């Protein structure tokens, strides 16, 4: 709308920069990290940042920077799996509920309500308890948790769109209902889903770290930021660096996704008006 050029989409800009930075870090970590990520050298433990260890070392004497680099792999993996699961299942459920409506919608929505009223972290703990911890299971559990909110967004998108003239027009032309759902409506809901997806990505990182904080998230030897924070927590007062490094990284990553989502929203709103 009425924005001046200069400040336009700072969100998108900053968000993209942050995420690109971490993406680069991740790509580099596949080929190179300053130290072996899992090499334990107890004699080097709990060092403060130095030239040798830019971000210090952890209580096993492992290099924090290397571990942070490596853990971006985990972060992006978990986030991606969660978002894919959430988007695919959520869109399917929400789309069906929204397009068909009636009692099917009622039942599905009550179920979704129930899922949402259910404390997510508890459900995650339960799912992890059943299937075990580890990167895959954690991602699956969090993916399932993302389904309700995405389903809601998808549903409202489908409801909004199905009453619009272009859908009626497609019907009038004789297009099959399934095609209407997936070829006509979906592309118009996708911008909302895109935003929801990037929020879900941030949410996945948050939730993974919360699970890890409770000791139930991604497990060693896969390094994860939440798990690093969990380890570092007890050294907070003496070695704040130990906790701050992964904590700040995590916050920045999540910030990146939030800003990206807001930026996207601005772009999309902008295009609509």
């Amino acid at each position: 709308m009425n924005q001046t050029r200069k400040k336009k989409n700072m969100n998108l800009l900053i968000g993209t920069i942050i995420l690109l930075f971490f993406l680069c870090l991740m790509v580099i970590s596949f080929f190179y990290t300053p130290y072996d990520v899992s090499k334990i050298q107890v004699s080097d433990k709990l060092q403060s940042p130095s030239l040798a260890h830019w971000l210090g070392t952890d209580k096993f004497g492992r290099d924090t920077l290397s571990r942070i680099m490596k853990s971006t792999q985990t972060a992006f993996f978990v986030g991606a799996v969660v978002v894919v699961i959430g988007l695919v299942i959520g869109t399917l459920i929400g789309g069906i509920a929204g397009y068909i409506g009636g009692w099917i919608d009622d039942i599905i929505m009550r179920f979704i309500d129930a899922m949402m009223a259910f404390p997510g972290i508890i459900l995650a703990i339960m799912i992890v308890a059943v299937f075990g911890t580890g990167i895959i299971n954690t991602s699956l559990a969090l993916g399932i948790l993302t389904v309700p909110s995405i389903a809601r967004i998808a549903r409202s998108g489908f409801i909004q769109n199905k009453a619009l003239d272009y859908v009626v027009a497609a019907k009038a032309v004789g297009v099959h209902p399934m095609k209407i759902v997936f070829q006509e409506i979906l592309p118009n809901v996708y911008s909302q889903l895109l935003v929801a997806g990037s929020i879900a990505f941030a949410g996945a990182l948050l939730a993974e770290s919360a699970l890890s904080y409770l000791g139930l998230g991604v497990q060693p030897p896969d390094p994860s930021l939440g798990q690093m924070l969990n380890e570092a927590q007890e050294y907070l007062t003496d070695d704040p660096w130990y906790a701050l490094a992964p904590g700040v990284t995590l916050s920045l990553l999540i910030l990146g996704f939030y800003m990206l989502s807001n930026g996207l929203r601005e772009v999309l709103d902008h295009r609509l008006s």
Partner: protein
Amino acid sequence: MVESETLLEARNLRKYFDVKGSGGRKHPNLLKAVDGVSFSVSKGETLGIVGESGCGKSTTGRMLLRLIEPTAGQILFEGRDLTQLSQREMRKQRRHIQMVFQNPLASLNPRRTVGELLEQPLKVHRMGNVSERKQRVMALLKTVGLNETAYGRYPHQFSGGQRQRIAIARALAVTPKLIVADEPVSALDVSVQAQILNLLKDLQEAYQLTYLFISHDLGVVRHISDRVAVMYLGRIVEIASTEDLYNDPKHPYTQALISTVPIPDPEYSGERVLLQGDIPSASEPPSGCPFHTRCPLAMEACKTVVPRLQESEADHFVSCHLYHKVEA
């Protein structure tokens, strides 16, 4: 007038919507959007439907394609009752009946190029192969007066009038027999409106199209229609050939309607029939004649007895007790 072949006939169409009554009463209110509408459209003619907002024009139009399922009634298209068809068969039938909507931007999927939009009906009805389809789309663009460069562009890159041309082209793509045009020019500026009206007329001539033309603008309807039906609160109150209707309106509502249209002529001094009050709500329609609450000529009988649509002169039907005395 030459008796011509009937293309479409609507018999006693009704559409009642369930609306959640206040406080969620046990029986939801029935909103009688369309309450027993019958008319027929002959091949090659244009039937105009006018009426104020909410009187059920769009609902009627959409029911003809079963985009809204009628609550009751029949729709005979070339003798076949469309209401009896399965969804599948109905989808096939839609090739013959197409629709043009009021808001051209809303009725075009914003994420499809004009090319895709125009090709879609051809694909759905399995017409031609890829190259034939593309050829046809190009021809269509030309027909409605658009440049070939429009093919790859998106609807939002066009002006309102151009968009309406695209919508018309899409409706034309499958060579339909009937086009239901629901207020196709209401959203347009006067100068563009004229362009589109002319286009519609030219197309009708060129392809022997039949139109059901819905509008609330009496001037526009007069300009384009051969016959006109006037609706009020879900019913047709008068239906006649355009000339008859405009020159000799029978129903008090039609008379009032025509007389209140502002004329762009400062010297015009026709008498105005000012109606009092508002249109009643369709969910709580008055008893008897729906118009009696505003009718300057209302009689006792009008409050209780529902008038029927009857022929008062040749091909001039009106639903009013003034013309058909109520039998006691």
